[in-house]
């Protein structure tokens, strides 16, 4: 069936089979391969995308459920030709990634969190990203990076 969504600020229409997950639709039909799959089971968070402002696991959501929604993937967090945003800068500075496989899910989760709660402290950040598995970093650098990026989100919010 035909669905409509706004993907990374671009409106689009796509024909999907009813059983296709949002993750597969994004990856294989829309070429957004930055969204990764590591469990397809809702456990690891690698596939996290932002749907209507909420961080959701795209492996658990059917593409048809995204009909009419506003979807942001990791690619939408940094339009190619621009500089990195505060999260990406902080991730790089703190070496908050190694193999990079969990990274998209960490970034989308963190972006949704900081947009809603730019003041999130270390403990809050830890408890939110405890839904995302990273096998490489041991998480400390990820938590530090998200915390540091919070400052920019705070400033943005105040400006708005």
């Amino acid at each position, binding site marked *: 069936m035909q669905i409509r969504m706004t993907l990374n600020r671009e409106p689009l229409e796509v024909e999907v089979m009813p*059983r296709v997950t949002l993750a597969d639709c994004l*990856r*294989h039909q829309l070429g*957004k*391969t*930055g*969204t*990764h*799959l*590591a*469990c*397809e*089971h809702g*456990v*690891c968070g*690698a596939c996290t995308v932002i749907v209507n402002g909420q961080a959701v696991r795209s492996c658990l959501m059917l593409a048809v459920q995204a009909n009419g929604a506003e979807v942001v*993937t*990791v*690619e939408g*967090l*940094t339009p*190619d030709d621009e500089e*990195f945003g505060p999260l*990406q800068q902080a*991730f*790089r*500075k703190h*070496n908050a*990634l*190694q*193999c*990079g*496989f*969990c*990274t*998209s899910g960490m*970034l989308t989760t963190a972006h949704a969190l900081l947009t809603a709660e730019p003041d999130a402290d*270390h403990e809050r*950040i*830890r*408890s939110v*990203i*405890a*839904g*995302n*598995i*990273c*096998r*490489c*970093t*041991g*998480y*400390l*650098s*990820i*938590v530090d990076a998200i915390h540091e990026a919070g400052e920019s989100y705070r400033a943005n919010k105040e400006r708005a």
Partner: protein
Amino acid sequence: MATAKKGNRLIGAPVERVEDLRFLRGKGNYVDDQSLPNQVYAAILRSSVPHGRIRGIDKSEALKMPGVHAVITAADIGGEVPVIPIRLQPLPEVFPLRQPVIAVDRVRYVGEPVAVVIADTPGLAEDALEFVEVDIEPLPVVASRKTSATDASLLFPEYKTNLAKKFTGLKGDAAAAFEGAHYIKKQRLSVQRHMALPMEPRGLLADWRKDIKRLTVYGAGKVLFFNRRAVAQMLGLEENSVELVENDIGGGFGARGEFYPEDFLIPFSSYSLGRPVKWNEDRRENLSAMNHAREMEAEYEIACDADGTIRGIRGHVDVDNGAYIRSNGLTPPRNVAQFTTGPYRIPNIHIDVSVRLTNKTPCGTYRAPGRFEGSFFIERMIEIAARDLGLDPVEMRRKNLVTVDEMPYPMATMQHIDPYTDTECDSGNFHITFDRCLKEFGWDEKVKLQGRNIDGRYHGVAAGCFIEGGAAGPRESARLKLESDGTISVFVGSSAVGQGLETVMGQIAADMLAVPFERVRVFHGSTSYVREGFGSYHSRSTVMGGSAILLASAPFKEKLCKAAARRLNVSEQEITLIDERAVAPNGASIEWKALASDDISAEESFTNTKHTYAYGAHCCHVAVDPGTGHVEVLDYVTVEDVGKIINPLTLHGQVIGAIVQGLGSTFMEHLIYNEDGQLLTGSLADYVVPLADDYPVIRGITLDDYPSPNNPLGAKGAGEGGIIAVGGVASNAVANALSSLQVEIEELPLTPPAVWASIEKQRLVEGTKN
């Protein structure tokens, strides 16, 4: 020729990673991100029976399904079904135990490939699996070391025993050392089956182009050249008509990139269909198909003098290897025999290791193979001995640590295995890292909490030391090439597996040529880049690949000078290389870029027979809740000397990541089989790994005070040290916390139910005594 030195600026600097630029934009290129026109999809039918005889496979129903192109079984391979080659310790006596790439007449573990279905979509291929009828006559299941040892049911009847192989590590005269020793203690200790579990599941995309007779396989990793040779041989192709390409890789940790059945089956499918074939495993498959690791049990004896001097260690280790000897399956058992004693001066050693076959997924290496296990065994033994002798465990360790004057210090010698098994610690001062670690940890203060019950939780601390072997030989190659835009391409045979290789290699090359980091581009991960390569295992990429770059930089610069000398009409010796220009004595100069047409390139390989040994110490502070068995890690500190730090940022990341993996091994991760040989932990909901809120306090400090004498960089392999001592040190902290309850820690993992049960057991024992 001279290169104007501006001091070495990049080696040792926290250079941010080039890899991040694509990963942070979601622009990585992992194998499942890649597709080819006209590709079809493979799904693999795996045995659900742990041990059985295949009576027949009926694929007719599946073949009738629209969109299904082929169902491939052993019978379709034609001729002898190939076996997975043994890459490390290729001992001919275990060749009969190698795994066929697809089950022929027997299945030996749940998850063993039985058939491959090729279809138009992944969904169709998976659906069709259910229509392949496999008739298997079940055989008695060997689900434990114990059953294996009885030989009542044999995995390989023609091998006549389930005992695949025995290793022995020897030093001095253990029997004599135990004779009349003041203190002897026998102890059983075991480590559970768990696994590397990289976040990205495996995948392959194979493309056989009949017209040009060329096979390209994407999704390779770790040991590209070895695997290319293997797959070329199996398919009867010339090696140079096969290219293996490494994409971005979502974690390796020893398990990814070894030769698995699919590394033949997917290329073979493409070869027989003449179309690109893509395969990606799901997590359930991954948990039963990728190498498992670490399942072994030791029964050791330690002999000490009254003052804590260790006289000897002896005993045996029983390894549950699973069903086949895979590419590096013998490495963990051989390592546990040689490296159990780690950094400690133990003059008399006799350790026998039995590798046993069971109906489980075959084992292979996982970060610090055999070393994590050995460290757990020895650290527990020393802690127990110190307690029994009434000694301070820190002092006892100090007394027995190898000193700087004893370097190089030889490890146990191995009986009957491979040609270069003798090895020695190359350099270092173990006492410095130990003392530094205790100091950073605040040992003197924290030890006051030892065994105390504070607000309902028991506190414990422990400290221990380790060595980390690295830089396995024999060789690694690097090629430097000047491009027409003046940039320098660096081609290496090492592979990346997610550890920031491009950055680290780029730092070394840029420093050697005194050019900015941005002017260097590193290429790795293709069998076309250099003549040969050996890959990324045994913490070797930086040392071996980096040393090769260093060697290649000299002839590269010579070529630059030669070419410049011709243009500037001076002799080659008069040229100075500075700021990407070649300068003559009279001030005339030419840009390197302008010399590119002279084909400026150089390839060198670095050969190494001696290993490097990084070393260090760990300290841990825990609080144990006796009501739930939950252990909180309140502080964890490591200090490691790695010889030469190339990039402190990436190194630090690896250290912290490794510690957290080790804490997962110690407290959580467990691949559980029931007595019927079924894997019970088939998803990430059952196989529990550390999450962000589990271990928030970890500190890692890295030093480079003692460079390795065995390579021009002075670097020692690093990346595994963070994990090695975690099992021993963290479990000692738990044991010390519970010392007033007389709880003995003998088995990993220390999950809350396990800790709770051992406390309860002791309560019952105490209860019956009173």
